[in-house]
């Protein structure tokens, strides 16, 4: 029984990280229908920024999250307005996929150039701390990562549901033409959405950097994880990302424990295929399907 509880708790904690790393991807896909293949590399950029600040100035990585989010918000806004918007205007949405893939390759190699290909690790003093509740053992950093994920996802959900900006984003996602007719600058909204997405990807990167060693080639893994989380949980909502991430985390740990540590990826893709067949919009559906 203890092993089952331990496995479930490990899965939930892992799922929190997956959820945070995927919410930005989910938002962009839901609002703009853009498959952002550079999502994973933006996650890593967040990790590298925190790493650089931690190494150079000794700043605790969790304290760098606001700065990382601000920097990547600006980057994401510019990326959308300057590159993706141009690609979509001149060609099609498919072009955005190709463009983001190309940008991912360039940014990945830029990271190698700047930071070297060596793997990095952010290890603040609390990185190796654990605590126990009864017979269950918890990695403090991973639990803190889950907590941070819940807080940030909650903030995002609040912004989307209760703020003027959130209403504008939802309106543009639901009916782009109607939103424009109401005076919404859709291009600006898309830029803001991408900025928010990149900001959350960066925050996830900071947390991932504390939890695991990271290197530029890992960017593909985080893009792939985001795909699976969005397919499981649904598009466009923090709740969907949270649910998808938690489900993915628990599936990973249960598979690893009771089938074999070699099989989480295989199980993950099996679930992905089943979801696409049975419920392609995900467990919570498309958050912006409102008046379509």
């Amino acid at each position, binding site marked *: 029984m203890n092993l089952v509880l331990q496995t479930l708790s490990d899965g939930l904690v892992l799922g929190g990280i997956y959820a945070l790393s995927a919410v930005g991807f989910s938002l962009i896909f839901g609002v703009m229908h853009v498959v952002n293949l550079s999502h994973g590399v933006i996650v890593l950029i967040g990790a590298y920024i925190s790493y650089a600040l931690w190494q150079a100035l000794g700043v605790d990585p969790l304290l760098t999250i606001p700065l990382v989010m601000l920097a990547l918000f600006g980057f994401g806004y510019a990326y959308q307005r300057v590159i993706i918007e141009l690609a979509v205007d001149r060609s099609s949405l498919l072009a955005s996929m190709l463009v983001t893939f190309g940008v991912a390759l360039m940014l990945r190699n830029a990271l190698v150039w700047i930071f070297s290909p060596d793997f990095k*690790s952010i290890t603040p003093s609390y*990185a190796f701390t654990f605590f126990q509740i009864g017979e269950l053992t918890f990695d403090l950093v991973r639990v803190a990562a889950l907590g941070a994920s819940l807080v940030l996802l909650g903030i995002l959900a609040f912004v989307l549901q209760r703020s003027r900006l959130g209403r504008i984003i939802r309106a543009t996602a639901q009916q782009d033409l109607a939103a424009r007719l109401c005076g919404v600058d859709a291009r600006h909204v898309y830029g803001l959405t991408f900025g928010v997405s990149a900001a959350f990807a960066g925050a996830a990167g900071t947390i991932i950097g504390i939890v695991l060693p990271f290197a530029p080639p890992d960017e593909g893994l985080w893009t792939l994880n985001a795909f699976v989380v969005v397919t499981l949980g649904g598009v466009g909502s923090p709740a969907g990302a949270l649910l998808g991430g938690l489900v993915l985390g628990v599936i990973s740990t249960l598979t690893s424990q009771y089938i074999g540590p*070699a099989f989480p990826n295989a199980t993950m893709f099996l679930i992905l295929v089943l979801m696409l067949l049975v419920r392609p919009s995900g467990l919570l559906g498309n958050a912006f399907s409102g008046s379509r």
Partner: protein
Amino acid sequence: MARIGRRSFIKSVGIGVAASSLPAPMVRRARAQALKKIPIGGSIPLSGRAAETGLNVNNGYVTAVKYLNEVLGGVEIAGERYQLDLRMFDDASDPARATTLIQRLIDDGCDFFLGSFGSNIVLPTVAICERAGKPMVQTGGGSDQIFNQGYKYSFGMFPRASLQFLSTALFYKSLNPLPKTVSVVVTNDAFSKTAAQGVVHDCKAQGFEILDQYQLPEQVTDVSSVMASIRAKKPDVLTCVTHDQDSLLIARQMIASGTTVPMLFQGLGPQLASYREALGKYANGITVHIYWDERAPLKDKFFGDAQKFAAYYRQNFTRPIAYHTAGAAACIITYVTAMQSAKSIKPAAVRDALAATDIETLYGRVKFTPDGDGDPELMGGVVGQVQNGDIALVFPDNTKTAPLIYYPAPPWSQKT
């Protein structure tokens, strides 16, 4: 006396300067023409997942070639002096790209090859060189599959993976208290799988019980279930047959989940300065496979000894030296020695000389089995342990530089 005008003066000075500079480039060109070049090519991961050690290997190649060309003024083979022309390209840790690069080099007339890093990359490139009849000497691939295909042109600086573990099994046997159970963690890749077979075989031969074998996917992000299992089953020894980044992840999660075993051995990982820096004091006590130490009294025909090699390396690179760097330099030394022995730079003759190689180098004795892998007795590794942030050699006794510490390992929080 006729006046010399300003223009005439300038003209004559200009002509004089031009005339005096003419012979120099011609002399330089003549000197350059006297030194022929021997191209030695290959691919190496300078980006991608294998790049951390790929860079170490590449630095070894560059160091040796630079030393032979610039310090020794080239190498003499059959009475002629040659410069080595190193042509390495980034394969981005991608086997498909590596094979394309190797084929292109073959098509461009390159006759001698150096290996990439990673058995998954070395294996297909070795096959291409074999088909083309070009030798490859490498320090990046240990998978049995490289050496059991009957290839005649492939030579490796390590014993094959399944034979690499013998010294470590003997190390376990020497521990007091004697461990009884061993658990093995292995990632699903060409090298690790065959190495793990060797681990299991050698441990059983020494009388240890294999408690569990945990097979992880090639790319790992979480091992919490493995940690839970280890905490429940309590093996005496945990052996990790994983690559550097995965080894660090496993060690980190062990520490962060309070999972302690009396002896933790990781074949790859702790030999990197970045690994030890990431773990800090917690790295102390972790044991690792080591193939070279610059403090060892190893003599070399070209560099003098291992210390002089390390000193020359540090004049040219700030990157910490690793044993792969020395192994790579030894690949160059071995090639040159074989060419000198064969008195030829024809691939077939050099291949025969490589097969018969038995020399002392800065890396240690180099001698290949008939299948081309390193002789397991002469070129097998020793056991090192992280102590105060550095690697000390702890087994066998004749190579020891420090006694073993932290055995049985205390809880992680008690390490200093």
